[in-house]
């Protein structure tokens, strides 16, 4: 399982990537949307973890851009704003994505990865 972490908080994504590494999950991290797109061109990721509010863009736009070239990619949104219930509803805009609120326990994050992979056929 290869994971791409995108968040403007460098300290967060770098640490998260390292911790995922301890747990056998190969994770790359970037802090800008443009970097994320170029990384995704070079590597095939199963899952992208996106922050929703970023300096250049937002997580939903980035998701649409990534989705164009990587239709199999799954997405998990990680946000500091809102509660999880809030995002479970879903909408035409977001589809049936997964939402987590910061801070998140690493075990719960890995659980979500597994759930996302299992859900074949979801957009």
């Amino acid at each position: 399982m290869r994971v791409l972490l995108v968040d403007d908080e460098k300290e967060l994504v770098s640490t998260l990537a390292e911790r995922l590494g301890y747990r056998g999950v190969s994770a790359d991290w970037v802090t800008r949307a443009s970097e994320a797109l170029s990384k995704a061109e070079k590597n095939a990721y199963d899952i992208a973890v996106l922050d929703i509010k970023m300096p250049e863009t937002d997580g939903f736009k980035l998701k649409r851009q990534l989705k164009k070239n990587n239709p199999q990619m799954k997405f998990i949104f990680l946000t500091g704003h809102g509660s999880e219930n809030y995002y479970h509803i879903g909408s035409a805009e977001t589809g049936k994505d997964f939402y987590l609120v910061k801070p998140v326990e690493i075990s719960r994050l890995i659980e979500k990865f597994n759930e996302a992979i299992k859900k074949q056929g979801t957009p």
Partner: protein
Amino acid sequence: MKQRIIQNIQGMTHTDPKDHREELNFRLIWLLSFLLTASFAIVPVIFFAVIDYNVTKHSVVADAVAQTSRLTSNNWRSVAFFFNERQNALKYIVHDNRFSALNDIERLTAILASLRSSFGGFTDLGVVDANGIQRTYVGPYQLSGNDYSGQSWFVNVVEKGHFISEVFYGFRGVPHMVIAIKQALPNGGYYILRSAIEHQLSPILSEDKTTENSDAFIINRSGTLQTPSSTFGDVLHKIPLDVPAFSKETEVIESLKYQGTDLIVGYRYIPDTPYILMVVNEKRNAMETWHQSQMALIRYLSISITIILLGILGITTYLVRRLRQVDKRRVKYLHMAEYSNKLASIGRLAAGVAHEINNPLAIINEKAGLVKDMFTFKQDYKEDPRLMETMDSILNSVVRCSRITRQLLSFARHMHVSLQVINLKKLVHEVLGFLSKEAEFRSINVVIDIGDDIPDFTSDRGKLQQIFLNIINNAFSAMTTGGTVTVHANKLPNDTVRIDISDTGCGLAPENLKHMFEPFFSTKTAAGGTGLGLSITYSLVHELDGRIDVKSELGKGTTFTIHLPLEPGKKEEVHACTPSG
């Protein structure tokens, strides 16, 4: 009706004993409106009634005066004509007959007969010589040869040439008056033709009476009655009134007191006679019809005023009650608006704080997690319990912080309602499913009593779950061990469902009860309460168009009552929101 009005007024004053200012205000408003409206309505009515009273009174008095004046003039004309006519008749006789002819008894009898038939009213006729001896006499009495030289009428006629006497008894002993004419003789002497008139004036006076109650009579200039008066007695009695001042014209005295009654007195002096014609009317009689109409007016006035007052009383009471209701509603809405504003601003603050804290919190979480990972995965420090304990403590604190920020965010969010069909019984069981372990552990008995008559209804499942979870959590934390939580629900006739959630816990003091739904108010701060749970519940219930109330008694327990509509409010739309990072 009286009782109803009293109840209404009491309703205004005793419903809210806490708010004395409101009580005073409305009682005063009611009193002022009643008094002002009543005075505006009644003062003109009374004003016009008083004016009408006076105007009518004056016109009635003026009428009575005019009537008396008319009557006096009419009577005066008749009486003056009577004397004039008789005096002229005698003058004609002395001019037309020689002294010798008049001394012929047959001739004199014939003249008396023709006088009686032509004019009427002559009782007798006599010729008196210059010495005052009645030389010839025809009439019903034996008066021939009488000496009149000592009588005042004789002295007067000798002096003036003609004379009309006052009424007197004289030789005949019957009240009569004398008309006498002095006639010169060719030898330079003179004689007097005299005639007596009895009982002739009263019939003339009564002919001209126009009303039953008026009294017309004649007095002489010393106030002695010359004709009988129904008011003052028989002929030759003195009347108890002052003799009125001389006047050629008819005069009316408007108000003259006599034996406690008010008299209207008309009079006129009759020229060349000692007589004054008088007409007396009792004012009371003249005013009688006026009194009757005034009594009717007063009755009508009283009835009108009573109806007006009752009307105003009813309208004022109704309006002030409405005003009070509207005012109460206004105060309530103001209070609600204030409360919502307070919640909203605290919500915005909370959201901002939570968002800002969540990011650094996430970094602490990951860094601490990494340190722990390093220890765990590298095996070097795995066996050091103190290190592990310290890391766990950091991570636990992060969990606690994040719980608070999550609650803050949940409080702040203003998402729209997402509607689903709800079976209340199932939903409550689901919620209790989360809490069953804790209930078992703490020996709390949970009773669910939800009627089967409650239909499935459309509402927001997530919000309802949250509401029940918060309240039941609150109930659990109010009890130490043991105790009972009861969830009771029933359908009300107005298409709402009423849910009572009661516990047998510690209850709340009244001063705390007021602040129960305010954000950050908690009686359990020591036990980790954030003071947001019930505040969120309050917002959620309102978002679902419902209402939540609480009753509590210290040491006995607390009951939350929620009213929810079975039909969701039309203003709400099913929306999913677009979240922002």
